[in-house]
């Protein structure tokens, strides 16, 4: 009997995109059930009563929550396609550690949320301070890329893996921010490895067929700014 896989989510959300990328890499058929992250449906509250957030993967009726945990679940539960996490314990550790860093909610280490801070910086001085922090983070990620990729094109080596997905999901929104600020964040002169990786990742079907096009995201961003609500869930 074929398993039933549903994903509660919204396509502009990078966290939902992570799960979609993992499902695609494993060639798993699923039904995307669009949820409005700001109006929590009964279905979402039943599937994720503790955190009430998307994405939620529902596999044969059982819910799994939290994007990176769902990606690990997909890797554990389906054997088709290459593993998303490396088999070597030290390599798997590096992938998990850097994914944690990317998602870190601790105010001293936030990387992705810094982009919001950048937009809202009240003075030129404050803006420069945030930009410095962002580039510091990118330099760290460049080092991580060089270590994890071992000369290959992705963090996962020859194939897209867990850490590629963890970081790559943000590339759509990163392009929106680059367009709006006229700043090139993934700069070949500063972080050549990462810049090359982003180009390869963004031309891969895993990204192209999952993440909405930049112009669509810009429209969504402008619409949401108009409503005064946060851009992504």
């Amino acid at each position, binding site marked *: 009997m074929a398993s039933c896989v549903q994903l509660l989510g919204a396509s502009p959300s990078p966290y939902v995109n992570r799960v979609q990328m993992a499902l695609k890499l494993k060639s798993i058929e699923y039904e995307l059930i669009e949820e409005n992250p700001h109006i929590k449906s009964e279905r979402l509250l039943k599937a994720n009563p503790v955190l009430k957030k998307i994405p939620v993967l529902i596999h044969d009726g059982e819910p*799994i929550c*939290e994007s990176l*945990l*769902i990606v*690990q*679940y997909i890797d554990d539960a389906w054997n088709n396609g290459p593993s998303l996490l490396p088999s070597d314990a*030290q390599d798997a*550790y590096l992938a*998990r550690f850097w994914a*944690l860093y990317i998602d870190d909610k601790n105010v001293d280490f936030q990387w992705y949320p810094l982009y919001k801070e950048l937009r809202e910086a009240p003075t030129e001085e404050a803006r420069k301070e945030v930009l410095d922090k962002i580039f510091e983070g990118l330099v760290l990620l460049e080092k991580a890329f060089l270590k994890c990729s071992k000369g290959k094109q992705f963090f996962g080596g020859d194939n897209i893996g867990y850490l590629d997905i963890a970081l790559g999901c943000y590339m759509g929104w990163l392009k929106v921010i680059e367009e709006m600020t006229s700043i090139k964040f993934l700069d070949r002169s500063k972080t050549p490895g990462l810049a090359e990786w982003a180009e390869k990742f963004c031309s891969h079907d895993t990204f192209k067929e999952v993440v909405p096009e930049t112009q669509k995201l810009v429209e969504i961003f402008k619409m949401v700014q108009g409503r005064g609500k946060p851009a992504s869930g």
Partner: protein
Amino acid sequence: MSEVKLLGTQSSFPCARIIWALKLKEVEYEFIEEDLFNKSPLLLKMNPVYKKVPVLIHIDKPVVESLVILEYIDETWKHNPLLPEDPYERATARFWAKFVDEKCVLSAWEAVKSEGENKKKAIETAQEMFEHLEKQIAGKKYFGGEKIGYLDLVIGWTSLWLNAMEEVGGMKLLVPEKFPSLSEWTQNFIRVPAIQDSLPPLENVVNYFQVGLNYLRSLSANKS
């Protein structure tokens, strides 16, 4: 020359998690006590990003962040598995571990720090978090089932360390009448030989949290 070293502090519960895991896996290790107010060059070299303990050093390579270290230990030493084998049960254990660190620990600490009306609200919030754990343990001896596992090690701080937090914060969070199953679990947990043998003295942990609280209060006094 030990193949496995652990940089940590005796009173830190993230460090305790790693000690417990290594003991359950029967892995020999060398414990190196760190002074967190005077971090060693080794710590700064091994954990340049976060500069925190615990740091597991295995064949000279560092592994940091307690939940990630637990996964590394489970994957490197495969006997006495910590994480469940079933993918759904693994995902569930990981979910609750993340919830514990992101919600339970932080809300408990918030209740320690707060004063007056804020303290009352903080206690209520923390107890709401504990209700989820109460539901998860109800009817089970351990979170891992018949034997302790990954999630038991992660929630282990609710035994001795929570007592210490309650003493420092002048409040009671884990009220047995409200949380009978979780309270019973803490008693079962600390009786497990590998755990019992590695618990630090309560007064050390009380002191550790008191020092931490005083430090935080001095930081915010300096800011205002």
